[in-house]
């Protein structure tokens, strides 16, 4: 396999931009119409994903360690979409046909052989990772929405029962697909520590024009089915630490932190916990009654609500970063922050600036742009 030749070929093909993935999917769907079902109606984002993955793969084709890690994740990730080993051949054939189409006269038997062996390598790593993963967990979990509770104008709490039971760690999230938005997956944090009945809570914020959040929060969601991918995410409680805990939650960023809070409540000797819960307006402090109730039960827990865009609010006002910074010194705390990107990064930077060691700061950055 001539790596330089492959890279040069890819650069030439990539000049055709969006035409390349467009051609690939049309070719695949024509040759294997049954594959169309599993993609969303709009393929715009999908084409971007494909190109990004190809760019990653080609860029790292001579750094096998990094490439393998990326491909193994990709292979596992594709299980929830229904990808089976047998389908990789179809994709490879369409990919090759597409590359040939955009290469024109530059397509030679040698180049074809290079691309074929490169794809075979990629496919075998992905298939192997998927196979290993099959022994550990199902491709996806089927869930039923058993409770829909509108907590604020734009926040709904869904409770989902899964089949089979989904094992996860507090702080983790799963990809969710609504029956009304086939092929569209969005990540949501599980908002509770594992329960005996296995039920999962999700805090869903309605995003203006967000395809999945609108489907999930519509009034008729009760009883509907969803699909959940495997639990992911690195945010989790450092149980070996003896330090006190600072939780900073912006809006529905509360979800993973509430799961961690419930986990702390089950500890034999819970640390002192300060939970800052912020929103733009008082209405956005959607889960405050439940948090206040917890604080009343547990003397180790202090809940501080804060509102950033309502100066008449009776409690703390200002951005979460401001409120946290003026409320105490947090250098000796384990810090967990979740919510909108800007708030997460600002708060983390200011805490680090004030002396909290970076390895004590744990983040969950909700993308949020498109849900």
């Amino acid at each position, binding site marked *: 396999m001539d790596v330089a030749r492959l890279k040069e070929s890819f650069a030439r093909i990539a000049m055709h931009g969006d035409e390349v993935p467009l051609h690939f999917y049309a070719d695949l769907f*024509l040759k294997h119409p049954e594959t169309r079902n599993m993609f969303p109606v709009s393929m715009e984002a999908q084409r971007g994903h494909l190109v990004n993955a190809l760019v990653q793969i080609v860029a790292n084709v001579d750094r096998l360690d990094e490439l393998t890690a990326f491909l193994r994740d990709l292979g596992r990730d594709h299980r929830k*979409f229904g990808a089976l080993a047998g389908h990789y051949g179809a994709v490879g054939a369409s990919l090759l046909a597409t590359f040939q189409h955009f290469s024109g006269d530059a397509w030679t038997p040698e180049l074809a052989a290079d691309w074929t062996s490169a794809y075979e390598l990629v496919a075998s790593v992905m298939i192997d990772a998927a196979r290993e993963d099959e022994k550990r967990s199902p491709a996806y979990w089927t869930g039923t929405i058993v409770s829909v509770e509108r907590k604020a104008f*734009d926040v709904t709490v869904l409770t989902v029962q899964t089949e089979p039971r989904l094992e996860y760690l507090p702080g983790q999230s799963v990809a969710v697909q609504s029956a*009304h938005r086939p092929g569209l997956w969005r990540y949501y944090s599980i908002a509770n520590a594992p329960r005996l009945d296995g039920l999962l809570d999700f805090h869903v914020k309605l995003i203006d024009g967000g395809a999945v959040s609108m489907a999930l929060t519509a009034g008729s969601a009760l009883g509907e089915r969803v699909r959940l991918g495997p639990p992911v995410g690195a*945010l989790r409680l450092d149980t070996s630490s003896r330090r006190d805990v600072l939780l900073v939650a912006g809006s529905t960023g509360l979800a993973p932190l509430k799961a961690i809070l419930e986990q702390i409540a089950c500890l034999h000797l819970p640390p002192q916990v300060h939970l800052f819960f912020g929103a733009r307006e008082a209405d956005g402090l959607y889960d405050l009654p439940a948090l206040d109730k917890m604080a009343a039960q547990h003397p180790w827990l202090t809940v501080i609500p804060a509102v950033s865009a309502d100066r008449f609010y009776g409690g703390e006002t200002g951005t979460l970063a401001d409120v946290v910074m003026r409320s105490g010194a947090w250098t000796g705390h384990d810090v967990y922050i979740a919510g909108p990107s800007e708030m997460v990064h600002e708060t983390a930077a200011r805490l680090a600036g004030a002396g909290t060691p970076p390895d004590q700061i744990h983040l969950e950055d909700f993308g949020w742009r498109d849900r």
Partner: protein
Amino acid sequence: MTTSDAWYDQEERMTPDSLLAVTFPLTRWGRNGYEEEPVRAFLNDVHGELVRLVNERASLWQEVQRLRRRILGRENGHDAVLFGKDDAHAHAVQMLSNAQLTADRYVADAQAYSGRVTEEARNRRDEILAQAQQHAEMLLEEARTQARQAAVEAMSRDALPPQNAQERRAVEGELAYLRTFTDVYRQHLRIYTDSIQRMLSDWDNKERTMLPPRPVADLDVPSNAWTPQIAQSRPDPAE
């Protein structure tokens, strides 16, 4: 420019990038020249158009080559047809691609529209709430002013404790008045906030009934279906 049957060849032509690099002479003092912004915007349009033309030219060139090969094949005695099975597939790919782009545009439009509607609803709600708060504060302030006045009057009329039955009756009268007054205002406020609440929930219900019935989507897809969906951009659990 003369037309040539070799218009696709490599002769030096204007490229999109050369258009972007074009500079214009400065205007002389006291004379009006072109404004730079519109010229730049126009050049951007020309650039986009040229990119499209280049892509079209490339696909036409491929088509010409393909047809040439067919014709040559026929002249050489091969049993060639102008449109073979491969061509049908190429056309199908083209059609499906166009259909997909149309669908993408519809979805994007619908999403943008629903986004606007939700945003407007959110803004309207904020307005109503702000107005309600303002109104409530006004009512309260009015009640406070009147009560203060009533108290001042009662105090100034007689600073001493009630001496006789007549004075006691007068003070009791004031008290009764104040009590009634607060009751009335409380009631006013309640009616007002109730009506706001009702308005909001009516609005909410109307919004819901206006939604079209949702089709029942089937999550169960054939198990042999393949989804080569590349990892959704996960909101990085950035460390």
